[in-house]
């Protein structure tokens, strides 16, 4: 008798698995067609020397892992990864600290907090091209009739700081920081929204209990708010890393497609350059490598996130 029950249970479980699988099948099919297949196809192209116009001929164009070997020795590529890393670092620190601070403030009993929530979310909904053009105008270093045209330089002159006037977007030491700051300005609204949603899920009784125990504001933040926010913080961190590493529209909009030598290049602009130079095989090798790097970052973040949740 127990054997029969076990058999029945197994049959039900198998049927349940099968039914569940059917539910996720459309998603798997879409994922395979639009993600897995292109990735495999791009890998196939990455072992060719191919200009993107000629018909693909594996026999003639096969170069093995030569494109990947060239990529390893390509200083410009690694420099672009470093630039993307810098933008990401600024986003992780400046952008997310600002987002958390503002979300924390809006979670308190603040007057007009709904108004601020809307205002803080304006930059993310603006097009990156528009943001880039507006900031290009602000950071313009041009002069007409002896007057600065750019808003920032104009303000610096008018406030008695003419020595700080700079060619912001054409100066190697300021171009990338300017891009990173504008990228953070544009992106902090997403973090703000997610942090605010996270803060609002924390049970208020925890704060009250902490206060009863004599905890101050700093102590509550450190011992109640931050530990409760760990899952949200990790999600924001992963999304910030992935978004910032792939930033490029803003860069093209602010600096132009040619970039400022190698000072403002990022992996996506490097891939674009290779494509437009008709080195499609090399561009695919860059794409595959960059994809693998991003997957590694995501898996690393998930690993850390799981470890922190266990703690």
């Amino acid at each position, binding site marked *: 008798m127990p054997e029969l029950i076990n058999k029945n249970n197994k049959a039900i479980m198998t049927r349940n698995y099968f039914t569940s699988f059917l539910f996720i099948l459309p998603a798997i099919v879409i994922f395979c067609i639009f993600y897995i297949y292109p990735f495999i196809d791009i890998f196939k192209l990455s072992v060719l020397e191919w*200009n*993107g*116009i*000629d*018909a693909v001929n594996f026999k003639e164009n096969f170069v093995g892992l030569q494109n990947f070997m060239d990529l390893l020795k390509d200083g410009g590529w690694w420099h672009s990864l470093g630039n993307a890393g810098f933008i990401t670092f600024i986003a992780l620190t400046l952008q997310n600290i600002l987002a958390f601070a503002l979300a924390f403030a809006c979670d308190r009993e603040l007057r007009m907090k709904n108004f601020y929530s809307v205002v803080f979310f304006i930059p993310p909904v603006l097009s990156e091209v528009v943001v880039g053009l507006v900031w*290009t105008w602000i950071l*313009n*270093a*041009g*002069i*007409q*009739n*002896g007057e600065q*045209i750019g808003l920032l330089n104009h303000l610096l002159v008018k406030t008695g700081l003419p020595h700080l006037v700079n*060619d912001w*977007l*054409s*100066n*190697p030491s300021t*171009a990338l920081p300017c891009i990173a700051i504008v990228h953070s300005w544009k992106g902090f609204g997403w973090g703000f929204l997610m942090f605010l949603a996270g803060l609002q899920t924390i049970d208020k009784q925890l704060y009250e209990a902490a206060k009863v125990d004599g905890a101050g504001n700093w102590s509550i933040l450190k011992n109640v708010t931050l530990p409760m926010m760990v899952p949200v913080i990790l999600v924001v961190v992963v999304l910030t890393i992935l978004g910032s590493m792939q930033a490029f529209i803003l860069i093209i909009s602010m*600096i*132009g*497609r*040619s*970039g*400022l*030598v*190698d000072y403002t290049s990022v992996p996506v602009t490097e891939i674009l*350059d290779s*494509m*437009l*130079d*008709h*080195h499609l095989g090399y561009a695919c090798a860059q794409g595959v490598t960059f994809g693998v790097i991003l997957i590694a970052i995501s898996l690393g973040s998930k690993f850390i996130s799981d470890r922190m949740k266990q703690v």
Partner: protein
Amino acid sequence: MKKILVIGLLIVLFAGCAKKEDPNSITVWHWMTDRNAAFIQLARQYEQQTGIKVNFELYAPSDAYSQKITATAQARALPDIFGVLGEKEVFASFIKNGHVADLTDEYKLNDSAWESELFPKALAPNVFLEGNIYKVKPGIYGVPIDVTNMQMLYNKNLLKQAGISEPPKTMAQFFKDIAALKRVGVSGLVAGWGEDWMIDCFASNYAFNIMGEDKIMATYRGEIPYTDPDWIKVFNVFKQLTDSGALVPGVVTKGNKYAEQDFALERAAFAFNGSWCVNVYHAMNPKLEYGVMLPPKVNEALAMRIWGTGSSFVVNGQSAKKQKAIDFLKWLTATQQQVQFAVETRNLPANKKALSSIDPILSGFAKGTDYATHPTVWDINENDQVSEKFIKGIQSIIIGDKTPQEVAGEVQAVKEKIMERKDRKEQTK
């Protein structure tokens, strides 16, 4: 019964997805934002005259257009008429893969009537001669619709303000004028050097002026190094421009649209731009008073050569409506349409007889056509990776990061690497 119903339904559904081809319409893809309105107007006229509808589809900027053309070529879904941008090698690849129709027979009909109507310099980028290095069957593969060339512009009022009576002809004179302009607080030269090809073009002008065509081609073939003193002189032009304060701030990341705005709004006395700028400046500031000049010479002994070509269309070699497309292009390049096109777009026409109708300022550009050359008519072009290093190197000189000698060394290193790889590949074959 159920099965039949389902199959029937699927057939009806998928039949609805099939694209219906209109035999009386042709499609043109292009990238020329400033000429789009004129194209649409002409297409309307053509439909009234012939009943053939011509759909002009604009894809800009040119980088995005190039990508679209390349991707669509792979899918063998190119439109009836399109343009190929980039170097001759790219054009050759499109031809060799059957994407571009050979128009030689059409040009030669009726004692070459069509060919003789067009400027040879406008036609040249579309011509592949016997024994060309790209191994393309000799012939004419494209139709020029206008002629452009790149020169320098000067603002008459700003020069007058600085006490300069005529535009400079030599670099020494140019630097004197820059000093005079600086004294009255006027910026010097603006250019869209945030776009690679514009730096390449300016540098190429000076390479021709300093060492001449043969030496440049010898460099491209790998026979002369970029560390040669003449190439150092070319790099040095940019260093001198930077050191003398001739360049407007931010020129190295300035897109050409911004550079055009700066010149049109009188923020700079000189500009480096193409003949299409006449239309652009007119739209931005109709009262702008300016003239056209060749870039000032460094070397008096050799001629200054400028880049000059035209925008061309090609006919899709696989199009079912090839003849209709050719007929439309013949109509588009006929005198009457070219006059209309030149007047409306303020561009130099490709048709010789239409030249009399051009804007007066364009006659300055028209004179420059005699000095015009272009990578698409050279026997050999430099490798893309070397060109990229060359352009980035010039950017480094302008921002004061590197010396001309350092840049020359770096460009030569890339050149040698490419030559080695080429040799290795040929040995393997």
